């Protein structure tokens, strides 16, 4: 009698235990460490209250990193979504060339980020890179791709967009293919032009997909690390020092685990806050049925 009731819990227990050990416990541990002073080595972790948070909020580095991250997200997310929707609109048809192109677009998504970053480091080397070789071949001047603060951030945004675009396109294609053909037929019979049909029919009906991609891409933008660590290490002069890279530098290079954990907690709260704002602002406009 008891077993049928317990069965679902027993079946779910391994996964719950896994998530508890590898997700919730580290989160709780991070929150605890954010109120302590620790350098990984000392057996003692003295409680310091909000000192770590106070030092972060008083630090220029933190605000600078936050603004760099915000700029990255503000440019990268709309760019990704707009490009992905445009490309998906062309590749949604089930024809041979579309399938090939989808595969080609998806390839960077499953390629090692470190490999991509290393290759692009060579491409964007100012004096020895392919990009400037092409420009000088055309009679143009060299561009300091990774030495100019503004350009370096744009380069990182473009590379990240290129890498993630394939995933967004595939998700959008699935969303577009789910829109019933009869709605397009009806709109067409009513005399709707292509742009009007796109705006009035397609966009509202793929809102759930857009909302999902928006949430995912904002989180991803706030967590970018590998490309930065390999290509610029936060440079030039801190111009691409985003929040997760600052967190890594604080915790794992400078041994300040307390402040690094405080930064992780702030990032966590920030992402939860952004998700709530998105839910409030956009959630009402999302319709899950045609």
């Amino acid at each position, binding site marked *: 009698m008891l077993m049928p009731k317990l069965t679902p819990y027993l079946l779910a227990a391994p996964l719950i235990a896994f998530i508890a050990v590898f997700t919730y416990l580290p989160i709780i541990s991070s929150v605890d460490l954010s109120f302590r002073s620790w350098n990984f080595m000392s057996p003692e972790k003295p409680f310091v209250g909000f000192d770590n948070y106070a030092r972060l909020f008083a630090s220029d580095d933190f605000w600078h990193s936050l603004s760099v991250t915000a700029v990255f997200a503000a440019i990268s997310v709309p760019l990704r979504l707009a490009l992905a929707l445009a490309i998906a609109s062309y590749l949604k048809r089930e024809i041979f060339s579309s399938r090939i192109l989808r595969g080609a677009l998806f390839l960077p998504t499953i390629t090692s980020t470190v490999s991509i970053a290393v290759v692009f480091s060579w491409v964007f080397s100012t004096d020895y890179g392919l990009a400037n070789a092409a420009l000088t071949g055309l009679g143009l001047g060299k561009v300091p791709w990774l030495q100019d603060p503004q350009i370096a951030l744009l380069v990182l945004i473009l590379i990240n967009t290129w890498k993630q675009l394939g995933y967004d396109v595939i998700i959008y294609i699935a969303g577009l293919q789910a829109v019933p053909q009869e709605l397009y037929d009806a709109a067409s019979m009513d005399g709707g032009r292509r742009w009007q049909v796109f705006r009035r029919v397609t966009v509202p009906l793929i809102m759930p997909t857009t909302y999902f991609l928006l949430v995912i891409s904002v989180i991803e933008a706030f967590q970018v690390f590998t490309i930065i660590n390999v290509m610029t290490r936060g440079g030039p002069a801190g111009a691409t020092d985003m929040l997760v890279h600052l967190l890594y530098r604080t915790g794992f290079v*400078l041994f300040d685990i307390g402040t690094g954990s405080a930064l992780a907690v702030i990032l966590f709260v920030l992402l939860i806050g952004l998700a709530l704002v998105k839910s409030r602002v956009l959630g009402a406009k999302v319709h899950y049925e045609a």
Partner: protein
Amino acid sequence: MSRKLHVLIAASVLALAVSASAAQAQTTVTFWHSFNNKSGEALEEIIGKYEAANPEVDVQAEYVGNYNDIVARLQAAIPANRAPDAVILEVTRYGLFADGGVLADLTPYFDADPLKDELYDYARQIGVIGDKNYIVPFNSSTPVLYYNKDIFARAGIEGEPDLSTFEQIADAAQTVSDALASEGITGIAAPGQFARWGLVMANGSDLIDATTGEILLDDPKTIEAYEWMASLVHDRQLASADGVTEEDNGRDAFLAGKVGIMMNSTGNYVGARDALGEDLGVLPMPCNDGCAVPIGGAGIGILANSPQEAQDAAYDFVSYAASAEANAIWFAATGYLPINRNSAEQPVAAEALASQPGIDVAINSLPNAHGRARTPVVTWMRTNEYDMWQAMALGQRPVEETLIQFAEETRAEEARTSN
């Protein structure tokens, strides 16, 4: 037949028992290091010789990455109780681990070891903080000035150049740049952090005083040296900015024959020799305002939490690695400085000195060589110096303002962490 079978079984069991007990008697020493390619092969040779002479010790060496990677991995391994028994640590950054009680105090071992009297004074001092010995030197280096003889000749600079002042170096780099820029050749590689520290010392100053711990980042002589270094990149455009944002780019371009001058560790000697052959020229670092070069490289520390047996075996290995025999192999294969007074007498070292011109430049610099500060704030200072250097070299911030602010921040960090 039956008796023979019994004898055979008994002998097999005995042999198995003996080999099992021998295997149990073997002490394993896990050792993290940062050497691959040629230097990795030389280290393997040293370990092989040690194990052949000490079959009761099994040294399990693991390449972990560069000095920064080792520090990052070590700090994650310590709370997880997965740290090695012995580890290579860069000479300015082991203070943090010594201060935190992570490294074993090797003073009792070292005082009882004849090795102590064999080491050069500079090498012996590297491992000492206060009155305790925390690391035994292994790969010691100073920066030297490398130049490409072929590039110099094509630029019209004949014979061995005199590059003993900042302006002489800048003039030579300018000559190379003027003559060969059309071939994609630049005059000089932007100095990496080790060379920057060396150039500050060559200008009569330091970043942090090794003896008193005084922060000298805003000393006028330090500022002057940085102004000159930054001018190579930004004002005179003699060095590629690629080497500012990624320091290895400067070295790689020099090894590819695309740069006239590079200031870098003597540990790059063999790699540069392999890349450039007879075109490689080696000179001492400049003496712009007095002659002084920093000691770099790393030593081997032993983890205080390792079992006593592993610590004993680890020290025995570490002591061998610094012996004349092992150090001669290391010196000849890499170009790192000899640390043992008797290394040069070893045939392999004597042959290297005779057949590899320029390998002795760093050795001749030893009278001017000084250890660098290794207080805990050095790690913070070195980590943040990269950003400061980039801002100055790329012309984003004035040198003097940047260094004055950086000095204040370093003092504040030192005060915070010492409380």
